[in-house]
């Protein structure tokens, strides 16, 4: 059996779903953020697989950009989490309900 685009896409889908599950099930802001990174990586894997199987490098350039933006996003997000922790002394989403009606 040859490994086709399908195999890579299924791995990507499963990885994305794992990340989504982490976002839904975990209650620690940092772990939720890590699960988001996992979802981003799953999308990257799909893009690289498409790039390979369509014989076109544009997908890889896209992944390159995504990785760069993700690095910037992680820095900003984590500094937001640190600022939040300074104000509220918690990193637990169930304690962050001040916007709840």
């Amino acid at each position: 059996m040859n490994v086709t685009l399908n195999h890579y896409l299924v791995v990507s889908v499963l990885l994305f779903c794992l990340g989504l599950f982490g976002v839904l099930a975990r209650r620690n802001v940092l772990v939720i953020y890590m699960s988001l990174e996992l979802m981003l990586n799953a999308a990257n894997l799909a893009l690289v697989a498409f790039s390979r199987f369509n014989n076109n490098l544009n997908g890889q350039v896209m992944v390159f950009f995504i990785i760069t933006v993700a690095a910037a996003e992680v820095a900003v997000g984590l500094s937001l989490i640190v600022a939040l922790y300074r104000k509220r002394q918690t990193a637990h989403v169930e304690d962050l309900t001040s916007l709840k009606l």
Partner: protein
Amino acid sequence: MPEFTDLLFFVFAGLTLLFGFLCVANPLSRNPVTSAMFLVLTIISMAGLFVLLHAFFLAAVQILVYAGAVMVVFLFVIMLLDLKEEARRKLNRVALTAGVLAVSGLAAILVRAVTAARPAALALKAGPLAEGDTAPLGRILFQSYLLPFEILSILLLVAMVGVILLSKKDLR
């Protein structure tokens, strides 16, 4: 007869999914540091998949930027915030069941959609293979994607300034 690279695909894909699972839902430990370490392992196995897809430069970038820089920042923040109390919290059973149901439903739909594709669309396109080496990637990056590249450098600058502003002590 399966080729060696196909075998490697299954090894790396299995490792990626296993470590990813242990990252988000480790049954033994709910410590964020454990999650971060398994995320590093997930990213490294994914770099193996990138190598199998001939995206050599991206595999290196993945390890350098994600497993190196991003995870170090994560670990720094975990170290700064004292998160010991997190492990003691009770899990919300209803939310967990709903999450499992929703996510497995989404996974079923997506996998079904992927496997329903025409087989002809999945084969490797003919022609000279595009290798993800630094030279072709650099050529395409600095010719077709020059403007997004420059915008990206401004974005990094903006992010840097923003982070410095956000981490000031008296945030107004």
